[in-house]
């Protein structure tokens, strides 16, 4: 009897861990679907959302803090897209402003002018950021050709590093956690001898809502269908009158928002530090291809599956090997079933690659 209970306990903790992989993978899928880009900064969106929520939770009610975390991460997602992905033929004031904001964030985070009065330091930050924004825009215009997907993927790796290091300056190297939504760390609900933290129910509920919401969004709303069209053939979508560039920005916002939400709901149990994003990205990517790139429902299943597998692995081999297991799974899938466990063959043959 106790054996079975232990197994369930492993499954439960696996589900908790797997949920975040699932949501990160869904974030990958959203951006992949509209641009073909694998956004390796996805893990940083998760951490950013959690960190901002944690900071604000000291002053505001939990829901408001999480809403702010989501808002900040979404804004950041849009910023990243506009600066690094959007391709402009003419001087784009919007991109210049976004570029300036990124420089401003960097300057503020690095504490370059922190010895001055706060107002002065903001002014000095702006004085540095604005010329950088305008100058950067001209440089981008001069040198940026319409990039291919591979270049953009590598840019996202750069963005990921930039974001991580900036977060290190802002929040330091400490580990933080959002407070539990219901009860505390030791509150549990017993289900047939298996102890479940109520937080796990929050996590699973959130994942379910996200998956269902996205499914309905892509399947039934005009904008959702248009996003699918943009992912299949951007030019043909534009010929239908669809503003593809706007929808790509929207997909970054959506992806960042979902990541931030996941970061916030899992933070009480898994804690958050500035450098967690990269392991989220690797595991999330594994899950995305395990389920079949582009398929959010499959990503959710694959995420839970990987979480449970990982949880059992740690029962058998030292936990430092669990990354190895993840990577072995990723390689096996890439070798033997690159369309993923749940990839539909029919859709596969109709896709370009």
């Amino acid at each position, binding site marked *: 009897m106790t054996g079975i209970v232990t197994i369930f306990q492993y499954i439960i903790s696996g589900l908790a861990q797997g949920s975040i992989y699932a949501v990160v993978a869904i974030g990958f899928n959203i951006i992949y679907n509209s641009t073909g880009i694998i956004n390796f900064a996805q893990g940083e969106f998760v951490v950013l959302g959690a960190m901002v929520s944690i900071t604000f939770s000291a002053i505001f009610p939990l829901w408001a803090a999480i809403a702010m975390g989501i808002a900040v991460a979404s804004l950041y997602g849009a910023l990243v897209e506009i600066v690094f992905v959007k391709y402009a033929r003419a001087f784009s004031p919007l991109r210049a402003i976004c570029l300036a904001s990124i420089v401003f964030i960097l300057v503020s985070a690095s504490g370059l002018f922190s010895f001055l009065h706060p107002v002065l330091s903001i002014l000095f930050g702006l004085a540095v950021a604005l010329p950088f924004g305008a100058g950067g825009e001209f440089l981008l215009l001069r040198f940026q050709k319409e990039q291919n997907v591979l270049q953009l993927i590598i840019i996202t790796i750069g963005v990921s590093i930039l974001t991580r290091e900036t977060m290190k300056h802002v929040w330091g190297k400490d580990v933080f956690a959002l407070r539990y939504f219901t009860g505390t760390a030791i509150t549990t609900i017993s289900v047939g001898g298996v102890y479940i933290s109520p937080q796990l129910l929050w996590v699973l509920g959130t994942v379910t809502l996200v998956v269902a919401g996205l499914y309905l969004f892509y399947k039934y709303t005009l904008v959702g269908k248009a996003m699918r069209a943009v992912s299949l053939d951007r030019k043909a979508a534009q010929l239908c009158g669809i503003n593809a560039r706007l929808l790509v920005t929207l997909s970054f916002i959506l992806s960042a928002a979902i990541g931030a939400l996941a970061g916030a709901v899992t933070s009480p149990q898994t804690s958050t530090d500035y450098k967690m994003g990269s392991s989220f990205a690797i595991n999330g990517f594994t899950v995305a291809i395990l389920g079949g790139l582009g398929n959010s429902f499959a990503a959710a299943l694959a995420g839970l599956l990987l979480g449970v597998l990982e949880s059992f692995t740690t029962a058998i081999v030292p936990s430092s090997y669990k990354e190895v297991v993840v990577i072995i799974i990723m390689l096996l899938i890439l070798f033997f079933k690159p369309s993923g466990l749940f990839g539909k063959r029919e859709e596969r043959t*109709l896709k370009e690659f």
Partner: protein
Amino acid sequence: MLVVRNLRSGYGSIAVLKAVSLHVGRGEIVVIIGPNGAGKSTLLMSVTGLVAPFEGEVEFEGRDITAVPAEKRVGLGCVLVPEGRRVFATLSVRENLELGAYHVRRNGLGREVRHDLERIFALFPILRKRERQMGGTLSGGEQQMLAIGRALMARPALLMMDEPSMGLAPVVTASIFKTVLTLREQGLSILLVEQNARRALSVADRGYVIETGQMVLEGTREELLNNNDVQRAYLGKDYSAINE
């Protein structure tokens, strides 16, 4: 309806079109014929805004649209059926058609989309049968009908078509060209790019011949059909047949 003036256009630093001008009047069917690589598709892409011209102007219904982004031009009624059809392969036939009406729905005319859809199904009954099938599973001819249907859902005033006969069986091509005539009767202006010159000229009011990025000839259907160079180069008659 459409006036193109001195359009110079191309990709990167390579100019494909060298000062091309043309016009399409209301209710006219105008064809552009020319060999591979002459710039026919580049010309249409420049009119849609997907390729930015280096120089020149595009005027649509009296308004200069050279700087208007591609997606907005669709809303103005300037719509292209692209080369190679480019239907959304993993979206259903119905979804493909609905997306054609994207700006119609965005402008709050969603109620009228259903009515437009019925019109398309009346024009191409096979699409109704295939309504739930994925676009990519259709045959070439059906995909062409879907591509035309999708463009019509945008309520164009000018319909541009890039090589609609490409890769299709002659009987299917014939029915597509019959549709072109039907659409003109319904008041559309049509700009058609074709390699199948004989077929294209058979439905046209006027035509242009484009070679290496320049318009080399312009005329009514009869003028072009009777032109020796056109006969030799595009209608498959050899020298002896022309000289006799």
